[in-house]
């Protein structure tokens, strides 16, 4: 069996979870969620092109509680993926790799995407 004399890498249960890991996972999760959302975007456009009756049927589905929750979820996914995507572009340019920078930009992305989502739904121009 295992040789206990060998050094072990940090065990997952004692490894402090860094916030950057959450963002990395969320980037992929929101991306996949929006890939599914593309089907709804297409349905929205098709129903709009089909006429007012079809469009109102689509709107009624999305106005139901489940539809509203999905739309709020997709709007957060959009703002989050947008902000974190820009964070990735800075990394691609070789900037912001220091640990304190990555942590700071992580919290910045979380806050901006939450504020943008809230503003999108609550602020009327």
């Amino acid at each position, binding site marked *: 069996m295992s040789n206990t004399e060998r050094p072990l890498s940090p065990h997952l249960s004692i490894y402090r979870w860094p916030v950057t890991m959450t963002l990395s996972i969320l980037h*992929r999760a929101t*991306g*996949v969620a*929006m*890939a599914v959302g*593309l*089907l709804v*975007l*297409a349905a929205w*456009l*098709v129903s*709009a*092109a089909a006429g*007012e009756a079809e*469009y*109102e049927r689509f*709107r009624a589905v999305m106005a139901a509680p489940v539809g509203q929750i999905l739309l709020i979820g997709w*709007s957060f996914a*959009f*703002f989050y993926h*947008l902000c974190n*995507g*820009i964070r*990735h*572009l800075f990394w*691609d340019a070789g900037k912001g790799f220091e640990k304190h920078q990555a942590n700071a930009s992580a919290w910045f992305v979380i806050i901006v995407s939450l504020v943008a989502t809230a503003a*999108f739904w609550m602020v*009327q*121009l």
Partner: protein
Amino acid sequence: MSLRAPLGRVLGLGSARDGTDHWWGQRVSGVALVLLGLWFAGSLHGLGPLEHGAVTMFIGMPLNTVLLSLLCLTVAWHSWLGVQVVIEDYVHAQGLKIASLVLSRFVHVFVAVLSIYAILRIGLGA
């Protein structure tokens, strides 16, 4: 002894000479979507309750018809590249992986063409 030529056995295993295309495509479409996405989110917000008349009038304006078509094209491309990486990471059975990749590509192209067709129908007033 096989009918396969030595060349046939190695083709596809080495450099395809387009190794960075995927990476660049993801970035270029990402940058385009920062702009198109913000424009779309701002426009949706401005349209308020999204009533049929207001939405079709918005989509029907020439610049919006073009920008929305570009958005659908670019987002389908970006999504296809992203979903491809996810499939390659998690689906290990070779047959299922290839099938998933092909299906994903079909769906993405279909959704892009469907969306743009609907936009043009509104834009051209059909």
